[in-house]
């Protein structure tokens, strides 16, 4: 088989090539072992041919028979060792590639910024991590085996065939070429059908998942029948694509078998005719060449065809396997190629002793792909040690403002300074180590409460964990759990209530003991008394340390040093409660609205 064919079978790409470099000795060893096995295999039909042709001599001369038997046993032992070696080395390489690519992907996942996770479903990323990596691993493992067999076993068989008889070989090769053409033809349709089938399965899976998650709503609106009906459609579609995929697959297999049957029939017909003619005294002569063939030769030939079946089928499979692996590699490469929008600057500035002065200079921000500015030309300074509240309507830019502080997104228009250093010039890990954050959604890892609280440090300090929990007023709750601080928070923290998760999240941020602490609307799910305790603790424990508190209600922030008032992304007020009450209409309106509610109550 021509050499260019080998190239067409392989898979290249910048994320894969380095693994060729790393694992080539294993591939080489495995491939050599495979080739040795391939060659050894072709000896068996030769022995068979001799047994047929020389049966009478062999019975007479047992040492000659012993030679053949010994030959078979040597070939068998060589194959035994060779097969063990190729399995160990090639699969070592293929699982190694899978593990390596998986690691590359996780490393990439750790670099991708919030905007990427905002746009991409976790389920999709998971698919790349699972089925696509499996596909690639399969290709490098079984794919390599199939490829080598397809090339070397068939070559070694064809050479043995030609050695026997060139005309018989030509007769046998015609149908084999048909198999290759047929394989290439089916390959294209097969991979598109395979994808369609996968897509339908995903649809079924997602539908069931969402339905079961939202079952309460479905039940409360009595929509079960509508859902069952919708599910039936998807299940029916799955049935159809599966059948149509199976039809193609079965038809492909059957056609290959048919070709092989025709091939063997040709060998019987022509071979038998050649032998008959030769034995009858008028051998067939083609192009001046007399065809001499014995029965043993013919059986040997049939033995070779037996051997060539697998590489031919492999050839058909490798084509579709490669196209699947190529698709998988493409998706993985796209993921690994995702441009990083938040990149750590070279020699970024580090602030070992951060004071916590935050300065925004004409800071304007819009989310990637959005026309609207989420923050508009904000200029303000938060002095070291100040406790500052941030209030504003939903969508006024409160969370956006704090998210940019630790570079979830880039600062593109205007500037943001921490202790006078533009945060775009700062070393990102250092910047983030200086700012602690308790986000709005209370994501906890499936780990013990104490590990969740001490998440910012490799080493856990029980004392500090307890203090942090006291700060967040969750210590007594945790203590009341049967396992206390060793309570494992379930997937996404299901074993804890929303309010408890919120407070563990606050404790986690406090534990970090950073110069700047940002609490993003963290007291929404806790009762007023707890909120008050936490606010008191902020005052007490964060004294002299910059602390930002986003709040929905003015009451949460009115006692803080200063309050930032945001409205539709604009800074409309910045000052103490008293100052704002005097001169800030938006703030006054917020307070007024809450008073209004009070008056409504009073009227009853």
């Amino acid at each position: 088989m021509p050499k260019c064919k080998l190239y067409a079978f392989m898979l290249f790409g910048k994320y894969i090539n380095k693994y060729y470099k790393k694992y080539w000795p294993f591939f080489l060893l495995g491939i050599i072992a495979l080739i040795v096995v391939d060659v050894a295999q072709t000896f068996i039909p030769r022995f068979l041919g001799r047994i047929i042709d020389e049966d009478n001599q062999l019975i007479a001369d047992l040492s000659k028979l012993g030679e053949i038997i010994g030959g078979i046993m040597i070939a068998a032992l060589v194959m035994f060792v060779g097969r063990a070696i190729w399995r160990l080395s090639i699969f070592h390489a293929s699982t190694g590639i899978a593990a390596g690519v998986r690691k590359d992907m996780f490393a990439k996942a750790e670099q991708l910024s919030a905007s990427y996770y905002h746009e991409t479903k976790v389920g999709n990323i998971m698919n790349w991590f699972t089925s696509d990596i499996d596909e690639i691993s399969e290709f490098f493992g079984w794919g390599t085996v199939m490829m080598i067999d397809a090339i070397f076993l068939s070559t070694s068989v064809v050479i043995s065939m030609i050695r026997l008889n060139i005309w018989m070989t030509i007769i046998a090769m015609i149908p084999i070429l048909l198999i290759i053409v047929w394989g290439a033809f089916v390959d294209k349709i097969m991979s598109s059908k395979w994808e369609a089938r996968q897509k339908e399965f995903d649809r079924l899976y997602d539908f069931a998942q969402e339905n079961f998650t939202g079952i309460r709503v479905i039940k409360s609106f009595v929509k079960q029948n509508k859902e069952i009906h919708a599910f039936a459609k998807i299940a029916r579609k799955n049935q159809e694509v599966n059948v149509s995929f199976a039809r193609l697959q079965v038809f492909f297999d059957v056609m290959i078998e048919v070709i092989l049957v025709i091939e063997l029939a040709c060998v019987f017909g022509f071979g038998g005719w050649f032998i008959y003619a030769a034995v009858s005294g008028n051998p067939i002569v083609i192009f001046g060449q007399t065809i001499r063939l014995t029965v043993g030769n013919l059986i040997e030939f049939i033995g070779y065809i037996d051997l060539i079946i697998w590489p031919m089928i492999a050839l058909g499979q490798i084509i579709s396997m490669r196209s699947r692996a190529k698709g998988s590699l493409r998706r993985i490469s796209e993921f690994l190629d995702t441009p990083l929008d938040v990149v750590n600057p070279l020699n970024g500035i580090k602030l070992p002793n951060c004071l916590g002065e935050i300065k925004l200079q004409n800071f304007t921000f819009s989310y990637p792909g959005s026309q609207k500015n989420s923050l508009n030309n904000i200029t303000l300074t938060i002095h070291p040690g100040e406790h500052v509240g941030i209030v504003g309507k939903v969508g006024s830019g409160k969370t956006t403002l704090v998210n940019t502080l630790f570079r979830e997104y880039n600062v593109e228009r205007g500037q943001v300074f921490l202790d006078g250093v533009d945060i775009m010039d700062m070393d990102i890990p250092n910047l983030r180590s200086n700012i602690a954050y308790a986000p709005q959604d209370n994501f906890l890892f499936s780990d013990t409460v104490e590990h969740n609280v001490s998440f910012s440090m490799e080493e856990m300090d029980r004392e500090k964990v307890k203090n942090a929990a006291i700060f967040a007023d969750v210590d007594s709750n945790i203590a009341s759990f049967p396992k206390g601080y060793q309570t494992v928070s379930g997937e996404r923290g299901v074993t804890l209530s929303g309010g408890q998760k919120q407070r563990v999240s606050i404790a986690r941020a406090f534990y970090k003991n950073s110069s700047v602490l940002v609490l993003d609307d963290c007291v929404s799910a806790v009762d007023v008394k707890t909120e008050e305790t936490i606010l008191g603790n902020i005052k007490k424990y964060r004294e002299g340390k910059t602390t930002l508190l986003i709040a929905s209600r003015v009451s949460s922030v009115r006692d803080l040093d200063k309050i930032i008032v945001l409205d539709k992304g604009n800074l409309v007020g910045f000052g103490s409660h008293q100052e704002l009450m005097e001169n800030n209409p938006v703030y006054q309106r917020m307070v007024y609205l809450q008073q209004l509610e009070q008056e409504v109550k009073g009227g009853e």
Partner: protein
Amino acid sequence: MDEEKSALLGDKKLGIRAILRHSWPYIRQEKWWVLLSFLLILVTVGVNIALPMFTSRFVGVLKAEYNNDTLSIIVGIALGYAGLGIANQGIRYLQAMLLQRSGQRIVYQLRMEVFTHIESMSQNQFNQMAVGSLVTRVANYTAAVSDLFTRVLVSLLSNIFMVVGVLVIMMSISIRLALYLLIFAAVAGITSFVFGKIVSKIFRKERQYISDLNAFLSENLSGMKITQIFNQEKRKMHEFDEKNGAIRRAQYNVIIAFAIYRPFLNLLYYGSIATTFFVGLSIALGSAEIVAFYLYLSRFFNPIQNIADQLNQISRAVTAAERLYSLLDVAPEVVDKPDAKPIEHFEGRIEFKHVWFAYEAENWILKDVSFVVEPRTTCAFVGATGAGKTTILSLIVRNFEIQKGQILIDGIDINDIQIDSLRKGIGQMLQDVFLFSGSINTNLTLHDESFTPEEIKAATDYVNATPFIESLPNKFEEEVLERGENFSAGQRQLLSFARTILHKPQILILDEATANIDTETELLIQDSLQRIRTIGTMLVVAHRLSTIQHADKIIVLQNGEVLEEGTHQQLLAKHGHYYKLYELQYAHQEKQAEPVIEVQPA
């Protein structure tokens, strides 16, 4: 999917008989097709056993003395081989497609039955089951069970026939040689079986590690933000490495096991070929017979390997079947009584008569609760967490069955009302607003196309949701992401109200969210609540002081008992429990000199 992790509460061991009993209805529908394809398999097995005899005969003819018929016999053998071989493939195609079609029909029906069954389960049962495990049952286990009957068992049988057939024919040629070969076959069979046992253990471990890693990945991809802002990428990388490495080590065990097993079987195969040649010649078998043995050997060893493999597949499929059928065995806890009546319209008088309720035996959540809510009035429930407020609401819609007492709507025991009609009449606004991926429209109508755009708009107008919807780029067609995460808590609340109003209930129950809602949206919500409560009877678990004060009746609960009831003014005048709760709150507000909307009695 990992077997341990996808286990559900109801899972139990089922005997083979139980599995067959459960499967029978599905197989029965396909029995003629399965039987037909089984017969076709017998034919192909027969042909596969017959084909080597052509080769054998061919050798016999060629090695014998030739006569006038020899050439025509040779051509006859070639044509016969071609004809039989091609016909056999035609039969194979037919047979495979018959089974595929039957199998897929069974998958479809199993999926429908499981899905429908899951839809019928009660809330309580849902709370105890992991969504992922339920999905696995619908998507994967159904296919595994269908595979068991349409692929694994059928091919197991065909392999057994093949082995037996080949053995019989070998014995008919030479018993002695066949017996020698039987030794090899026995070793191969035993090796395969033992190997299968070992390897299934190793495989289980591998699957376990893979699902560990997947769980880790899915959690960490969701929580990547936290890892990043806490600078813990290195540590997470380390954890990832450990899990990734565990998979590799487990995979290496699999590789080693196969690197011994497969080559060993091959060695046996070649050993049996050598034996055939040696013994065959020693006992003076003819070339034709030796060729026959040679060809049969591969038709003998492959099925033996397959049988061992399929036995293992069966045990895996049986686990899938057990999981699937034990889920189907879980009877819905809350079902219609046979004589339950549908109710078209509720006036909305709700009465609890000495209701006792416990999620688990004797751990009473509600103790002898009695109250009456008159039609078109609003009743607020207040009390500490765990007092039983939310439970009362979920009992009215029969998410759970009460143990003692009676719940009546318009004087009818709710157990006598068809659940569907009961729930249609009651609009539920839950604490966690769940939005489906889709559009705002589909979330409001829940795919009920009988609602007109005007009706939808009227509903959103009614709850003050229209302005924010219309400010979105695609308005009512705006995409809603998974779980509605592209909307704020307040917006989700408004959408939930609109969804409820659109479905025109006569009774409303509201479990007020404590979520952070900005004042502006909060006012919109309160304003729409004012209107919503005029629709009909409204029961509300209240967190807002304004909601409580607007209520026609307040019921104060403590530890599952009704402590007090009355209007806000009456209860205050009583100087009882409510008064204390309110005082606490009121004093707090006075100290702050700032209105606080939330009241969360401690």
